[in-house]
């Protein structure tokens, strides 16, 4: 920094101006400050510059604050509503939109799965798959139309410890629904939502492994351990276990979403905690439609790979369909929810 010879009428350089301005704010480091103070002693014009800048700063600082002419609080009646999350089955127009979106996702998933099974399967399966898929499609439609449908097959007694991961998913979802309804566990909402999606994803992974990877039954025992994993890990685990590209895409879609929320690992702990909580039967009714779907594949959870009778293949196919539907539904739910948050 060269010393500028003080000349009448000339302004200091830009660098000096920055030095003076920063000096006024007390933000110069000690070395710079000492050097500047020495120059101020010997350069009256620089000192004059400093004083005038200081005065201008003081003028601004002394301006009295102005009172706003009105309040800018938002009117709850007209403000854009960003009501959160789990009012999924819920009330009002948004609920209807979500339901129809979910139904559309289910139909699409069934159609795609049917096509995949068709291209994979043998003669008997070729005939069976489309038929089953259209039947399941009908179920999906029914489920969408009547979410409160009764289900006697609900296999979740209030005190029974959760055994099948799919049931975990359901009970977790129910518990979360409760939490959201009462709007008391505010933080839990985000966690719950995440845990729900994770649980769905993991539930989808386990039977899928059994259904498609029949030659490698060792994968099935791994799956019940899934709830202890972190969200991305679970998604990664799920993805390779599945042969269907749609599934993999859905699982991958969930993984970044989980990371984007920057949730701590407590999320999964929360899920586990919620799973062991006794399930409210009344609340479970709201999820009856899902349970109905779930009850269907129960009879044949056995890998039974060597026994390739047309009947068992068809059952496995249905199980696969239901699992795909549930996973995609969870994904769709997620997407819809995030979308609402953005809008």
């Amino acid at each position: 920094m060269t010393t500028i010879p003080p000349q009448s009428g000339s302004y200091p350089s830009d660098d000096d101006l920055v030095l003076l301005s920063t000096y006024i704010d007390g933000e110069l480091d000690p070395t710079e400050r000492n050097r500047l103070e020495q120059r101020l002693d010997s350069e009256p014009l620089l000192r004059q510059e400093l004083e005038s800048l200081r005065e201008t700063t003081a003028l601004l600082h002394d301006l009295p604050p102005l009172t706003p002419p009105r309040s800018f609080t938002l009117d709850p009646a007209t403000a854009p509503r960003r009501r959160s999350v789990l009012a999924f089955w819920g009330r009002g127009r948004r609920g209807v939109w979500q339901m129809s979106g979910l139904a559309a996702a289910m139909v699409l998933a069934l159609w795609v799965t049917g096509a995949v099974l068709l291209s994979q399967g043998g003669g008997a399966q070729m005939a069976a798959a489309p038929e089953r898929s259209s039947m399941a499609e009908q179920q999906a439609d029914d489920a969408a139309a009547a979410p409160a449908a009764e289900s006697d097959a609900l296999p979740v007694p209030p005190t029974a410890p959760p055994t099948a991961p799919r049931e975990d998913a359901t009970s977790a979802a129910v518990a979360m629904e409760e939490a959201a309804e009462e709007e008391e566990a505010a933080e839990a909402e985000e966690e719950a939502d995440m845990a729900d999606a994770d649980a769905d994803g993991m539930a989808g992974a386990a039977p899928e492994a059994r259904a498609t990877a029949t030659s490698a039954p060792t994968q099935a025992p791994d799956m019940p351990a899934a709830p202890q994993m972190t969200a991305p890990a679970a998604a990664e685990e799920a993805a390779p276990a599945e042969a269907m590209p749609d599934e993999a895409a859905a699982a991958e879609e969930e993984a970044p979403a989980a990371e984007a929320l920057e949730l701590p690992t407590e999320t999964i702990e929360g899920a586990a905690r919620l799973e062991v909580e006794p399930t409210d039967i009344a609340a479970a009714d709201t999820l009856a439609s899902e349970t109905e779907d779930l009850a269907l594949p129960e009879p044949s959870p056995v890998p039974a790979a060597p026994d390739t009778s047309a009947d068992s293949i068809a059952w496995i196919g249905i199980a696969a369909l239901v699992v795909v539907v549930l996973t995609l539904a969870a994904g769709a739910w997620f997407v819809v929810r995030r979308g609402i948050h953005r809008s």
Partner: protein
Amino acid sequence: MALFDSTCGVAATMSDVEQNLIASSIRGDIEAFNQLVQLYEGRIYNLCYRMLGDQDTAADAAQDAFLSAYRNMGKFRGGSFKSWLFRIATNACYDILRAQKRRPSTSLDAAMDAEDSSFEPQDQHESPDEFALRRELGTAIQQGLAVLPEDQRVVLILSDIQGMSYHEIAQIVGANLGTVKSRLSRGRARLRDVLQAGELLPARYRHEDEQRDHA
């Protein structure tokens, strides 16, 4: 966990109350958000007024800013909420200034002519003369600010009227510290030149300046 909490407590610059309000607002709680509005509306309005120089326009900008903040709460990723909010408000002001440039009818001159109508009324200890002088001074400064380039104006307002640190200003305007210092120094020098040369300052202030210069 306890360690984590304690370090957070030290690092936190916002009060717990505000943190809770922010968390609730992110979940869509409009009542909580309105409490945040009440915490900040005075300062946000002042920023908008000094940027735009007109009461109604400033109120519109402030309202736009809070609406936009509410819509985008989901995108708030921690850090200083105040800086985030001020950044939104600054952008709202830029939007209005850009629109004004497209429609030259509401030009700078209109803002220049405007009286500082929202000036605080005279208090009991102030004579009518003093109040008139103070008001004249406020108008002069506002007109001086209007002459500044926008990037200098906003830095000057945030620093010298709102009392923010370089670091906060850098966050708000999205520039590095060097740029902030540079804009601030040029803004101060420019405003000083405008106030002195343009004789916008009331006579008494100019007189004091001269006296001090000769001292």
